[in-house]
C-alpha cells in the first residue's frame, strides 16, 4: 500500500509540474504586454519599461517560470499587477467562499442522489424508478446557471426567503454565510445529483446481479437485506469515482454560478483578472484549480486501493 501510494504521489508531482508548464506557456508567453495594457495607449516607452522592470517582466520566460513555481512551493504566488497585493492573499480571501460552496454543493448532491439512486434501484421498473430516472434525465439537461436564475426568481424575488446575490461574510455568523450560499449550492448540486443518482442506481443493479448476492439470498436474506448488507458497499466504487470527479467539476462550475449570484469567490476574481490582464492572478487561480482536480483524483485512487486491494496491482 505504501509503495502504491508513493508511486501515485510521484505521478501527482509530475502531473502538477507538467500542468504548471502548460499554464505558464499558455498565459505568459503570449502577445500583449501587461505593462502596456495597464498604462494605456498614451504611455511613454520609458514608463512602460520601468513598470516592466518593477513587475519582473524583463527577465527571461524560463527564469520567470522557475521563480513562479518555486514561489508557489513556498506559498508565494507573486504580486498582482493591478492591485499590487500578494496574489496568495487575494486567493485566500476568495477561496473562503468558493471552497465552502463546492463542499456545500457536493454534500447536497450526495444527500439527494443516494436515496434517489437506492430507491430507483430497489424499485426497478416501477413508476417510482421511471419517475426518478425521468427527473434525473431532466436534471442533467438543465444548465446550472439557468436553474440558478429560476431559483432567484422563485426564492429571492417572489418568496423573499433568500437574498438574490452577494455574500455578507463569515464574520456575520455561520448561519448567515450558509444561507447566502444555499441557492448557489442548490443550483450547482442539481446536475451533479442527477448524474450521481443514475450512477448509484446502475452500480447497485449491477451488484445485485453478482453471484455473492445470489449466495446471500440463498442463505435466506431478503432482497432488501442483501442490498443493504452486501450490495451497497460493493456498489460504492463507481460512486466514489464520480464523487471525486464531481468535486473538481463543482470547483470549476462555481466560477459560473458565482457570477450569477455576484459572489466574491475565485470565479469572480478570475474574470476580473482577465479583463484587467492581471495574468499572474489568472495563472495562479487556474493552477490552484488544476491542483484541486489532480489532488482529488489522487485521493480517490488511494481510497480505492484502501477499499479494494486488487486495484493496487493495476497501477
Amino acid at each position, binding site marked *: 500500500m505504501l509503495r502504491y501510494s508513493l508511486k501515485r504521489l510521484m505521478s501527482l508531482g509530475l*502531473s502538477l509540474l*507538467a*500542468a504548471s508548464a*502548460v*499554464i505558464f506557456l*499558455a*498565459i505568459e508567453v*503570449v502577445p*500583449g504586454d501587461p505593462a502596456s495594457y495597464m498604462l494605456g495607449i498614451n504611455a511613454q516607452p520609458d514608463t512602460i519599461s520601468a513598470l516592466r522592470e518593477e513587475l519582473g517582466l524583463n527577465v527571461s520566460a524560463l527564469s520567470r517560470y522557475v521563480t513562479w513555481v518555486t514561489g508557489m512551493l513556498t506559498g508565494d504566488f507573486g504580486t498582482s499587477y493591478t492591485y499590487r497585493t500578494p496574489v496568495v492573499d487575494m486567493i485566500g480571501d476568495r477561496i473562503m467562499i468558493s471552497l465552502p460552496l463546492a463542499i456545500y454543493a457536493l454534500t447536497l448532491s450526495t444527500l439527494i442522489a443516494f436515496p434517489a439512486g437506492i430507491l430507483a434501484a430497489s424499485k426497478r*421498473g416501477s413508476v417510482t424508478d421511471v419517475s426518478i430516472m425521468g427527473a434525473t*434525465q*431532466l436534471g*442533467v*439537461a*438543465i*444548465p446550472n*446557471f*439557468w436553474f440558478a*436564475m*429560476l431559483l*432567484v*426568481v422563485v426564492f429571492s*424575488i417572489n418568496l423573499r426567503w433568500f437574498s438574490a446575490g452577494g455574500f455578507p461574510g463569515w464574520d456575520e455568523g455561520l448561519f448567515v454565510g450558509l444561507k447566502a450560499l444555499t441557492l448557489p449550492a442548490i443550483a450547482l448540486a442539481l446536475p451533479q445529483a442527477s448524474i450521481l443518482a443514475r450512477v448509484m442506481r446502475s452500480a447497485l443493479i449491477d451488484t445485485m446481479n453478482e453471484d455473492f448476492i445470489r449466495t446471500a439470498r440463498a442463505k435466506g436474506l431478503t432482497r432488501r437485506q442483501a442490498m443493504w448488507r452486501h450490495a451497497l458497499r460493493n456498489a460504492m466504487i463507481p460512486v466514489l469515482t464520480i464523487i471525486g470527479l464531481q468535486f*473538481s*467539476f463543482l470547483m*470549476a*462550475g462555481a*466560477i*459560473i454560478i458565482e*457570477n*450569477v449570484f455576484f459572489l466574491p469567490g475565485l470565479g469572480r476574481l*478570475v*474574470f476580473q*483578472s*482577465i479583463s484587467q*490582464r492581471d*495574468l499572474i492572478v*489568472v495563472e495562479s487561480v*487556474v493552477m490552484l*484549480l*488544476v491542483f484541486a*482536480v*489532480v489532488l482529488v*483524483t489522487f485521493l480517490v485512487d488511494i481510497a480505492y486501493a484502501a477499499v479494494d486491494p486488487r486495484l493496487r496491482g493495476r497501477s
Partner: protein
Amino acid sequence: MSFLTAALRNRSFMIGAILAALFVGAALVSYLWTPFDVTKLDIAHKLQTPSTEHWFGTDHFGRDIFAMIMVGARTSIAVAVVAVGIGIILGVPLGLAAAARKDSLMDEIIMRTNDLVFAFPALLIAIMITAVFGPSAINAIIAIGIFNIPVFARLTRGAALSLWTRDFVLSARVAGKNATRISVEHILPNILNLLIVQGSVQFSLGILAEAGLSYVGLGAQPPIPSWGRMLAESQTMISFAPHLAIFPGMAIVLTVLGLNLMGDGLRDLLDPRLRRART
C-alpha cells in the same frame, strides 16, 4: 428486425430524435427565413410578452425572441458539432495509435498527455484561451474541442485494445497487414457504434458548455445571437420580464434532453447486450 424498425419502436430514441431534429431544423430554416430580422432593433415594441405576433415576446431592444432562438440554435449547434469533430478527428487516431502500440513509449506519452488535459475542465481551458486571445465563438470551439480529445482517445484506446486480442485481427496480421491498416480497416469499423453514442453525449455536453461560456461572456460575441448570452442579458430584467430567460433556457434544456435521450436510445439500438442488461 431492421435498424429502422427497431429505431421507430424505441421510445427514448424517437422522442430524442424529434427534439433534436426540431432544433437542427430551426437552425437550418433560420438561414432562409426567420419571423423577424434579429439584427433590427425596434425599441417601440421592447419587452413585449408572448403574443400571436411575437410568439416568445420581444427583448429589451424589441428583437423577436423566437427568431433569436432560431438563429442562436445555429451558434450552439455549430460550436458543439465542430468541437465534437475536433475530439473525433484528433482523439480517435491517437487512441488507435496508442492501442496498436500498447505499452510502448508512444502509448505512454499519448495517455499521460490525455491525463494532463483531463486535469483542465473545459471552463479552465476556455479561461486560459480567453485570457490570451480574447473571447469569441472560435475560442469556445477550441476550448470544448481540446476537452473532447482525451475523451475520444481514451474510449477508442480501451475499445481497440480488446479488439486487438480477437481472432479476426490475428488473421489480418497473419495476412501481412500492418498496424495502421488493421486499425483503419478492422478496428475502426468495429468501434464506430461506440463512437456514435459517445459523439451524441459529447454533442449535448458541448451545447451546455457553449451556453455556459457565452453566459459568462467567453463565447460568441455580439451581434452573433447565442442562447447563453440571451440568458446573461435577461438576468437583470428577469423580475419583470421572465420570458426573456424562460424561452432560451427551455431551448437549451430541450435540445440537451433530446440529444441525451437519443444517445440512450442509440446505445440500446446499437448494443443489444446493453439493452438486455438495462431492462
